[in-house]
């Protein structure tokens, strides 16, 4: 383990390059095995075996896929907008890579511990929306264009509840430094004080990554893969790499913000190896939960997911900010944070359930009802 404020070789910029190189390597390996793990987990949920042929228990499947992608011919439609098309993978991948800069994995392990870390991650991670629009527009493909604008609409909408939930945590911790937020959770992790924030964080995170059940922008059966239709081989693999790296970052961030990161439940200063194990276990828990969601839930329609965001998530997260402020500013007991947040979570769930049930009872649209009434009236 390195000393807390020490830089490798004592030179800040060299240290930054080396740490980023390590992150780049680790990230690639993690993503290769995450794709394998996802296929395996979903296969087991659906009572299949998943990959078994490449290496022992199919462990090398991800490596084989990566090799195939590098060796595949790179195609670009002749009518595509060349530079927009070619720069889109950069624009999608680089912001995700940049988020790694501010995520603390243990007390000493991370690239940098920014005092504005949370703000930085939220700001940078929203940049890759531009990449999806570029991919959609530049491909000169109708499916890609439709997928691109849908991705943009969905990602900007779910950005708002995501920001408001991490703000809730920042209010309780009075800091934007992720390491400080984590270390305030040595006794009680923030999932206890802010259950609503945790749930909304996962939901909005799924939508930000275009994952099931919010995968309408990249749905194969509807827009044949969305913005990435025309991308093949190595270019396509950067969209994939970006998705799985952001899955990893989001899980690590969720573990740091809500589950007590590398601290809880072993007091304020567990040994370094234990911190690493804690963060790995919690991150894996988050990742497995997200895989589980993908294996279980059906896809939402775009009108459903947009109105869910604007009519349910945003009002309840704003309400949570208000109640957090009330409790914190008047120094009411902390337990009230849990009471308000939990009540809002129950209320939001109940409201959603009622709305879904009412929508299920209501016929598709009013015109169909009128047509049917007309048919009855004619005696058909």
């Amino acid at each position, binding site marked *: 383990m390195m000393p807390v404020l020490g830089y490798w070789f004592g030179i*800040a*910029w060299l*240290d*930054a390059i080396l*740490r*980023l*190189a390590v992150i*780049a390597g680790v990230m690639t390996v993690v993503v290769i095995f995450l794709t394998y793990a996802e296929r395996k987990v979903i296969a087991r949920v659906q009572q299949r075996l998943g990959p078994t042929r490449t290496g022992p228990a199919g462990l090398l499947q991800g490596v084989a896929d990566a090799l195939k992608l*590098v*060796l*595949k*011919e*790179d*195609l*670009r*439609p*002749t*009518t595509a907008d060349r530079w927009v098309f070619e720069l889109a993978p*950069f624009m999608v*991948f*680089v912001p995700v*890579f*940049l988020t*790694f*800069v501010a995520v603390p994995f243990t007390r000493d392990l991370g*690239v*940098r*511990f920014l005092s504005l870390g*949370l*703000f*930085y991650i939220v700001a940078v991670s929203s940049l890759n929306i531009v990449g999806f629009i570029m991919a959609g527009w530049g491909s*000169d*493909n*109708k499916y*890609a*264009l439709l997928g691109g604008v849908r991705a*943009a*609409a969905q990602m*900007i909408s779910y*950005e*708002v509840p995501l*920001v*408001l939930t991490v*703000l809730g945590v920042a209010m309780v911790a*009075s800091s*934007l430094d992720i390491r400080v937020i984590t270390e305030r959770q040595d006794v009680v992790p923030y999932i206890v004080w802010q259950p609503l924030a945790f749930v909304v964080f996962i939901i909005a995170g799924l939508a930000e990554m275009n994952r099931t059940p919010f995968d309408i922008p990249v749905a194969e059966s509807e827009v044949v893969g969305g913005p990435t*239709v025309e991308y093949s*081989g*190595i*270019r396509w693999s*950067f969209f994939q790499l970006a998705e799985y790296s952001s899955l990893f970052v989001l899980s690590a961030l969720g573990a740091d913000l809500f589950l007590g990161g590398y601290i809880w439940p072993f007091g304020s200063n567990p040994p370094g190896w234990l911190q690493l194990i804690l963060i790995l276990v919690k991150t894996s828990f988050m990742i497995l939960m997200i895989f589980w969601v993908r294996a279980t839930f059906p896809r939402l329609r*775009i009108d459903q997911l*947009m*109105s869910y965001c*604007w*009519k349910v998530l945003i009002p309840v997260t*704003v309400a949570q900010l208000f109640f957090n402020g*009330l409790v914190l*500013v*008047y120094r009411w007991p902390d337990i009230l944070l849990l009471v308000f947040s939990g009540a809002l979570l129950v209320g939001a769930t109940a409201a959603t359930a009622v709305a879904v049930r009412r929508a299920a009872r209501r016929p598709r649209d009013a015109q169909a009802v009128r047509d049917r009434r007309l048919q009855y009236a004619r005696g058909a």
Partner: protein
Amino acid sequence: MSSLFANWVAVLFGSIIGTLLVAVALVGNRLLAPRDPGRMKGTSYECGMLPIGRAEGNIHVRYYLFAILFLLFDVEAAFLFPWAVVFRSIGAFAFWEMTLFLAILMGGLAYAWKKGVLRWS
């Protein structure tokens, strides 16, 4: 060397290394992969048929409405971040000030909701 420089130089190099990562992979692909462009390979995919027209249609107005709403909330979020850190040390005044601000914003959302902006179809 200030810690400000030490911290943000990592962000600078992060963007450079991230870009290089993609560029190197693209060059590697150029060297390793076969290249055999053909006329049909260069058409964009449209269910296996020849594409009809260009994909440069108009985008429905509802996307813009959501984008405008998002802008309001995003500006508000940028305003909330510093507030969330310091409001406890300022006290009740800062809290009620921000509550008023949020109330006006939610009033706007309610108005948009009532006007049917949030209805997708």
